[in-house]
């Protein structure tokens, strides 16, 4: 090997190494927002341009609507959501003592419906459930994610982490293969993010709708050609729980906008 050639190889190795080391220091976490184009960020930043706010508006109406045999609305017990729901979404998924397992925000809303309003649960990804969830989550925008400190959740977080690291599907990929190991790269033109669920439920331009974290997870699982877990499955909640724990301290953006 000639000297110039060897030099360039050394330079390549050095730059390659330094770029990697600079872009992936442990503990540096970035929201999906940081990976977006300025135009998409502008949609999220302006509440009158963010289509997610349409769901929030609907949720505000549903919050006051009386439902079920009990004839109660959310507001009848919880009052003004500005105060009562502030700081709630950053704590979910949370442990439900009756069920003995964690429930996410959608499941909590449905539990409140069945237990207190005596109304049938809302269907996953239905407009009403997404609207109520978006409305509740909106009250915590800018607050730090606070999931992960409850000792009762420990085994479920560990299970979620296991699922996050589990290679599956025809492509034999785990969540971590992309979102831990390759988040600074692109996949078919799209940025691979670090998978911090800071803005759910969020408006995805691809969906042309608001969707839940479970919908996003199912999309990813289908992408690796594995059989997705059903909506409401314990596995999905455990994954949500682990991911929210992993994002502890990051700021809530709900309803976020993503490409």
């Amino acid at each position, binding site marked *: 090997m000639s000297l110039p050639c060897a030099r360039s190889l050394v330079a390549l190795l050095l730059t390659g190494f330094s770029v990697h080391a600079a872009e992936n220091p442990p503990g540096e976490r970035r929201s999906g927002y940081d990976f977006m184009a300025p135009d998409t960020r502008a949609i999220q930043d302006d509440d*009158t341009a963010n289509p997610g*706010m349409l769901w929030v508006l609907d949720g505000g109406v549903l919050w006051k609507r009386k439902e079920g045999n009990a004839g109660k609305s959310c507001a009848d017990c919880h009052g003004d959501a500005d105060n009562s729901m502030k700081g709630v979404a950053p704590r979910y998924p949370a442990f439900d003592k009756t069920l003995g397992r964690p429930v996410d925000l959608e499941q909590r809303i449905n539990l409140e419906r069945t237990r207190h309003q005596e109304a049938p649960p809302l269907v996953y990804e239905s407009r009403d459930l997404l609207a109520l969830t978006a409305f509740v989550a909106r009250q915590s925008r800018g607050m730090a994610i606070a999931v992960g400190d409850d000792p009762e959740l420990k085994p479920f977080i560990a299970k979620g982490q296991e699922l996050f690291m589990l290679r599956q599907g025809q492509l034999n990929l785990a969540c971590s293969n992309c979102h831990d190991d390759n988040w600074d790269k692109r996949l078919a033109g799209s940025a691979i993010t670090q998978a911090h669920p800071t803005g759910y439920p969020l408006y995805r331009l691809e969906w042309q709708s608001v969707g839940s974290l479970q919908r996003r997870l199912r999309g990813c699982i289908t992408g690796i050609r594995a059989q997705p877990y059903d909506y409401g499955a314990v596995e999905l909640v455990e994954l949500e729980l682990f991911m929210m724990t992993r994002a502890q301290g990051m700021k809530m953006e709900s309803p976020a906008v993503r490409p």
Partner: protein
Amino acid sequence: MAAALINVPARAKRGDIIEIKTLMSHIMETGYRRTAAGDLVTRDIVTSFTCRYNGKEIFHADLFPAIAANPFLSFFIVAQDSGKFEFEWIGDRGFSETASASITVE
């Protein structure tokens, strides 16, 4: 539950160029998609949008199937008089929504 989000500045100086932003909740079903059974999903889109400023039409848009769900339209006008903006969306299946906003021009 159709809903519109409107952003009009509450105040402006006469002669100022102001931006008006509107967002309408709508699925904008193209009419080109098929169900799993192969049947066409009927088109359901907003076909027209109109903005009136103190009764006079100042902006009109025709919308087509290629426009994304929840159409967002923004446009600029010169603030002339205090008064009211009226917005109207008309679409398939008898869709019709209105909204309004006031402005004070000094």
